[in-house]
């Protein structure tokens, strides 16, 4: 959904849902997921509605993901690190009836 303006930026490898993916170094996890077009990145807890980053400044709590085993981290407030394990909080089957 988003692309790098300067494509010469160094890349690092993180693990997304168990799969190694290459993302720009020095960006937030939310930015990396938008770069990977990983939208939606979670389903809401009440109605399992698809959600994606909204404010990117740590106040809307829409970009919650699991980072290195800790759930509900604001992806926009965590910087990507090489080897980091990110898991999306998607509910299986959600959206099928939408």
């Amino acid at each position, binding site marked *: 959904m988003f692309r790098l*303006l300067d494509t010469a930026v160094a890349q690092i490898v993180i693990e997304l849902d168990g799969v190694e993916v290459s993302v720009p170094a*020095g*960006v937030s996890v939310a930015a990396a997921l938008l770069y990977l077009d990983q939208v939606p990145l979670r389903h809401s807890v009440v109605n399992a509605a698809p959600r994606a*980053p909204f404010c990117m*400044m740590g106040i809307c709590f829409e970009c919650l993901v699991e980072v290195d085993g800790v759930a509900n981290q604001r992806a926009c407030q965590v910087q990507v690190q090489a080897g980091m394990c990110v898991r999306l909080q998607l509910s299986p089957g959600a*959206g099928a009836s939408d």
Partner: protein
Amino acid sequence: MKAAYQLVVIGAGPAGMAVAQTAARHGIEVAVIDEQADAGGQIYRNVDASPLADIDLLGRDYVFGRQLVQEFKHAAVEYFANAAVWYLDANGEIGIIVDGVHRRISAQRIVIACGAQERPMPFPGWDKAGVMTAGAGQILMKSAGMVPGEAPILAGSGPLLLLLAWQYLRAGVKIRALVDTTQSASRWTAMRHFPKAIAASDYLFKGLQLVTAIRRARVPWLREASNLRAEGDERLRALNFDCRGKPQRIETSLLLLHQGVIPSVQIAAAAGCEASWNDVQQCWQPVVDHWGQSSADNIFVAGDAAGIGGARAAWLGGQLAGLQIAHQLGELEQAQRDRLALPVRNARARHLAIRPFLDSWYRVADSCLVPRDETLACRCEEVSVGEIRALAAMGCSGPNQAKAFTRCGMGPCQGRFCGATMEQIFASETALNPQQIGRFNSRPPLKPVTLGQLACSD
């Protein structure tokens, strides 16, 4: 980090940096706590560590911040990045999570300089994946060097929407449409303030420059848009809206919203500082005197957190708070304080001269404040506008009772994206104004903290 400081500043945007530097210059021991990885606030985000090859792309006003950030980093100030305030009370006790560890500190004076947030712009489908704030688009450009891969729609109203359009065009990003909700009638009210705005003509010229560039790029500019509805299943597919009575539909995978910014009042409110309703800017702001002192003796609020005035006014307002704190703590004579404050006050007044004009021109359309019943008012707990409206019509006493009935405002965002909508629904149903209706109580934890972090604190 020590257990106590003379002054703790919350936020390292223009206001917070200015408070800290000013107070430190007069011998005050200062700590600055900021949630971001680098100083500058949202406005000057990453200005001193930009991922962009050419930061001039973002405009002169952004580049201006680089010097402020560099000066701040050289000041005699203890600066803590990646630090979130989750607790503040009237006694000056502050609870902070720094790099995942909980710390408690206290201060004789506290300055809340946590800036502003996007005003919520609720309409059916604003929660869909692919709908973001214009501010988010800017943050991605400033901090990650990223721009939309496909042409986005920009929707709403206000200077930031035009600025983002201008920045995107400079970066070679196509814009599918500018869906403008500004009411043309508000221009006539705004013209009354034009003579005063001439004192801040640089802002007028900048606005003209943005408008000219957007027109020259032939961006479809759809004015007086209303009745916005985002469409899509797993992700956004299209924006539907009415433009001068005619229904329109534009396909897009990315919609960036803006409806002005409002002060972030949660921290001040949690500490018990009084707030009042600003009927022109349509938002709550803490009650402060002309130094930035709140209703609490030990707490100041500076910059946009005390009322929207823009980055330059925030920087100057922060200096005033710094001078007054140095005076109150016995480091600065009254006469010298006043002598130093006078030019700052004059410069700040000049920057604020544009506000009445801008605030009237971009006054939020009533139809945007009170959305249709099927709109999600509360994104976290998924409570609709219709549910709140029904409670208000039934005689529910106000936002806090409606919160208890519906959980609207109890989710992780803590009412930051539903509070304003809640108040407006009550206002429209009861014919009272938000000052009479009141706002959500604000309580810690202001940001997430785990029991483990609290248990491990010293």
